[in-house]
């Protein structure tokens, strides 16, 4: 996975999203150790302070925990990860629905279309 940022929004927000996505998709699996702030900053080519802030935010949400000597770990609370996954899904759904609204579809019509698409695929 590569780190890509769109230019309009704060990098910090995008880092939080990307890290959360990596955790819920298992790229950084439950209970696994995360690379250090400096390593991650170098990998993403972002400012270490910004990376640090993003990690602190995730820690605040309970998705990450710090062990004083051995570094940062992804939570092994599967329910928490599942909730985060749903929260991220919610954002996509909201985006989808508001786009559809712009096109003049009601929520029901939009969902119907999405369901059709799902059926088509099968």
């Amino acid at each position, binding site marked *: 996975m590569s780190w890509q940022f769109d*230019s309009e929004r704060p990098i910090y927000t995008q880092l939080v999203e990307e890290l959360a996505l990596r955790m819920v998709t298992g790229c950084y699996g439950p209970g696994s150790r995360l690379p250090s702030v400096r390593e991650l900053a170098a990998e993403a080519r972002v400012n270490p302070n*910004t990376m640090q802030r993003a990690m602190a935010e995730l820690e605040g949400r309970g998705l990450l925990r710090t062990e004083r000597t051995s570094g940062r770990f992804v939570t092994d609370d599967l329910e928490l990860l599942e909730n985060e996954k749903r929260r991220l899904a919610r954002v996509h759904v909201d985006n989808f629905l508001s786009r559809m609204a712009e096109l003049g579809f009601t929520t029901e019509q939009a969902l119907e279309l999405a369901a059709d698409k799902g059926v088509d695929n099968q």
Partner: protein
Amino acid sequence: MSEHSPYLLEARSLTRSFGRNVALSGLDLRLAPGHIVGLLGPNGSGKTTLMKLACGLIKPTAGEILIDGEKPGPESRSKVAYLPDTSYLNDNMRVSDIVEMYADFYADFDREAAFSLIRDLKVDEKARLSTLSKGTREKVQLVLVMSRRAKLYLLDEPIGGVDPAAREYIINTIIGNYHPESTVLISTHLIYDVEPVLDHVLFLKEGRIVMEGGVDELREQSGKSLDALFREVFRC
């Protein structure tokens, strides 16, 4: 012992003119440890002048500049790692000689780190600088500067004249060797490439700071990238 200052760099009404031309005009600036700061502005906005003042190559016309609480001099130079905007090494020297020279003069120089970075570059240690390409020479200069464990790094246009691949290398070297007790000041007019690396920026225009702030705060407020913001501030 000098009085302890919380700032690595502090400028008060800093002014420098060259004849009738005012390069910096009443600049007030404070840089605390632990940041990568972008000094952004078009050519001739005073970026190089500020860097030269900070390492004592030139003296202020008025006002003052302090490095870690003291005036620039031999003492402050042992804390400042400066990358000038020119090729400043003797071409006859071998790469290994220059590394040893840096190790000799700067107590904070990490010799092993330097040699390992040189090896990463696939540069022959025994090669004379005159045999290296311009881009490689610039990378060697950056390696020397970033192999110091200095308090303040002053990088004047480090990605100015190099290709995109080299830019990536340079930016990685800067992040990889930066440590949290120090501050890096990077001057550039190529904002797009460095933007994600910075956490604070100063926009310099005709010798004055016209905008300053945290990168994410500025992006949040304006809803624009710094690159776009820069084009707006410096529109002709």
